[in-house]
């Protein structure tokens, strides 16, 4: 019985990993609502193998530094037909809290709203300080030691 409850609770938590749609203004609101914490925004997609390889490492970093005020938020760049697959990955990897999927009228405007210098290449990580200011970006394969050092500087 206890096992059944634990299993049910586990499924409920995992099942909660529906991706919230987000556009340019939604992302700015998200950043504003997380002032006070150091936040790493991870832009990824189901089709991006390096993104999938990187995600568990990012989650480990978040688990290690969460109590010090660090948070990881994921934004899938997948198209609507990949939304279910993206949700499955978010569940499988055990992403905490809300996870997001871009739903913008124009990918280009969305990309430019995050960072005009960003080409749109994935994986892409953007690190924000407690004031809600973007301080670093990491595009492509990222050395976790360099990323951790950058996060620690802000904590």
């Amino acid at each position, binding site marked *: 019985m206890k096992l059944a409850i634990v299993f049910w609770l586990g499924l409920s938590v995992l099942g909660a990993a529906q991706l919230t749609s987000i556009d340019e203004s939604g992302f700015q609101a998200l950043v504003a609502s997380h002032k006070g914490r150091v936040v790493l925004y991870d832009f990824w997609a189901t089709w991006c193998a390096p993104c999938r390889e990187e995600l568990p490492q990012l989650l480990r970093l978040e688990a290690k530094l969460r109590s010090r005020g660090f948070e990881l938020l994921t934004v899938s760049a997948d198209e609507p037909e990949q939304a279910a697959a993206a949700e499955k990955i978010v569940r499988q990897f055990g992403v905490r809290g809300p996870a997001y999927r871009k739903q913008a009228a124009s*990918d*280009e405007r969305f990309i430019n709203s995050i960072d005009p210098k960003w080409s749109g*290449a994935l994986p892409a990580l953007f690190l924000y300080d407690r004031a809600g200011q973007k301080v670093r970006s990491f595009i492509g394969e990222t050395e976790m030691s360099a990323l951790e050092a950058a996060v620690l500087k802000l904590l």
Partner: protein
Amino acid sequence: MKATAAVWLALSAGILCGQEFKLGSKVSDFQVQDLDGKPVAFSALRGPVTVVTFIATQCPVSNAYNQRMIEVYKDYAPKNVKFIFVNANRSEPANEVREHAKRVGFVFPVYKDANNVLADRFDAQVTPENFVIDSSGVIRYHGSYDDNMNESRVHTRGLRMALDALLAGKPVPIPENKAFGCTIKRVRKTT
């Protein structure tokens, strides 16, 4: 003398570290390698309008465009547009590029960019990514094929618009755009 050396060093560093070929600027001659490793010069491949496209074998976004690459080639090669498809990924060797081209039915050659030298000169970041060069060697378009990897949701075909404009002798309406894609897998450089 010291000042001259300093200027030379600064210029060299700029060329080595920064983007050399930019939208609106003129490209100098460059080389790619055919799949047997033989160098081929841009000057031997160029035409009145030339498209340089960075592609990949393993990138799902690049692969989503394979058919569109073939269609654009078939539509514009007869209009004397030249195409230089380049694979700059360190992780995708020439034999893999050859096999991939055969498997997906490419009707054009694909070249390698060893050590991503050309990708660095163009500052190409993503696959697929296009640079359209006019008859005078000036880059007139930089960007994606269109605005969605899912063809059913495409609204704007940026590359075709650029080619149509250049062939008609008109300014390119949207000279630059962006789309999601895979990073170019560059060689690791020691500094």
